[in-house]
């Protein structure tokens, strides 16, 4: 991995305040996922600094990093990353297991969030028995279940039809209303318009960073 390094991000300088809802846009390969992975502490930066909640994130010990990932950050992957031998509910409950939440409470919470993404009846199904959109919604429910301060979502509506997309965005807006900070990678302008700020990336640099008037998703639901 380290043998031939590739410069993906070339001088990203931006900060996100608590309570913001940011859309990251840009063409394929522009480095959106890479940025989000670094922000989500799944990847490490080679140069520069990243401060999370006032703490510089660099060479953190594993236990501390795990603690941040668990309590602070929620991640929705572009490719879902569900555990294939666990049911939808068990997948959603997993971050709570690492938060040492009791079994019963875990299941109740998992069901609650599955209901919010409209998949309560699918709680007992394995990922292989779900459609792409359903998997994505399970992944969203899993990220939400941990009730993270910062939610990072890599194309959360990429596999959804517009109606379900708006439902998911409605959910995301509500969580944001509750004070959580959210960053979303998206290709769709109408999804970006539902955020409060849009950052455009191109070839690893910020092309544009603007505040927008948020369109509420509730009206389309």
């Amino acid at each position, binding site marked *: 991995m380290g043998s031939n390094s590739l410069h993906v991000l070339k001088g990203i300088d931006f900060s996100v305040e608590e309570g913001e809802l940011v859309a990251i846009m840009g063409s394929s390969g522009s480095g959106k996922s890479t940025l989000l992975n670094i922000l989500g502490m*799944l990847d490490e930066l080679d140069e520069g600094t990243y401060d999370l909640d006032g703490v510089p994130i660099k060479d953190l010990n594993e236990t501390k990093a*795990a603690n941040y*990932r668990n309590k602070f950050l929620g991640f929705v992957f572009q490719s879902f990353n569900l*555990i294939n031998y666990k049911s939808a509910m068990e997948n959603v409950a997993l*971050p709570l297991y*690492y938060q*040492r939440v009791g079994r019963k409470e875990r299941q109740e919470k998992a069901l609650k969030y599955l209901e919010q993404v409209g998949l309560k009846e699918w709680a007992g199904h394995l990922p292989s028995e779900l459609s792409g959109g359903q998997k994505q919604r399970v992944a969203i429910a899993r990220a939400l279940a941990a009730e993270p301060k910062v939610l990072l979502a890599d194309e959360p509506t990429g596999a959804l039809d517009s109606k379900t997309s708006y439902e998911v965005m409605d959910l995301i807006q509500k969580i944001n209303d509750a004070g959580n900070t959210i960053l979303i990678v998206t290709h769709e302008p109408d999804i970006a318009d539902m955020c409060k700020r849009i950052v455009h990336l191109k070839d690893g640099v910020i092309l544009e960073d603007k505040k927008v008037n948020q369109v509420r998703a509730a009206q389309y639901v």
Partner: protein
Amino acid sequence: MFSRDNWKEIFETIQKNKLRTFLTGFSVALGIFIFVTLFGMGNGLNNTFMKFFGSDATNIFRIYPSQTTLPYGGYKAKRRIEFYNEDVEEIVKEFGPLIQYISPRISRGASVSYKNKSDNYGTEGVGPSMQFAEKTIMMKGRYLNANDIRDRTKFAVIGRMVEKDIFEGTDALGEYIDISGSAFKVIGVFQDDGGDNEERTIFIPYTTRQLIEGNNNKLDQIVLGFNQAIGYNGAMKFDKKLNAFLRNKKTINPDDPRGVRIQNVAENLKENQQVASVLKIIISGIAFAVIISGVLGISNIMVFVIKERTKEIGIRKALGATPKMITGTILLESVFITTIFGFVGLILGIVVLNFINGKSLEEDYFITNPEINSGTAIFVTILLIVCGALAAFIPARKAARIKPIVALRDE
């Protein structure tokens, strides 16, 4: 780490990955099973060996006459040497204090019948002392005594199997059997640790045998029990002196490889013990190799299993699992599986050893009481569990340390 919740998570993982669990468990169970059965069989082989060579007394010389091969003292080669009754007396006169007991022996096959049942058995014309040499155990009645020898009685002491075969369960004591045309009274029934074949023998006074064969005084063999106080070295010296004495008496070339032969059980015993210990070393070596290959097999499967789980480990890390939690869970999982299946293999092995234990195994394959002592079995099982845990721990720790993004990329 050992909370109920943790165990539940582990059971779930085990339950939902049945094939993986089975593969790991199977290799552990098989390893232990092969070890236990192999080791048990090896011990059984050793038991047979010890029994075969250990059932007769160990302080014995068997003295045989045979044809000479060299001319000596005016005699030509190829002279047949014979032993007579007075030879026994002269040996006693010469070596008295060294001798614990001595008995002539005349072996003849004979057709033996009782009522309308008959069969062929080996008869042994012997003296009373033969009971000590053969370690014959009387079940009922008595053995031959000095009066029987003096009076040339037609008395017979028969083996347990002879009674079983031709008396078909009825009491043989006091009955008359026909041995090659002469009627003998059964005065005793014996058993012998040496197995069924030794229990298919009939002992009669050697003087009676000589009477039947034309009132001669020839002997086939002389069996001598030396005084055990003289020790191994004393026995070797006695062996030499006795040999020289007999060669002098019978005028046999001292360098003749034949003429007279003394089979010294003390010497055999030493050789047998060496063979037995070599046998033990070979068995231990094979068993050790089985364990090593078992450990390698488990390690292989563990590496494979964890490789397969790299992505899952990445997901778990992204959701906030610490490397410690991940390695801990995988470790517990593998210890749990290896323990359960290890003991399954152990129990199966012991069951099989007990099941195959029997007469036919003993007679056809020379395996007596295949067994494994519980200490060895449990030690090896624990060894395999520890190795399994280690084999899981090393790759698991490696996987738990890589960056989540790298683990997630794994397909």
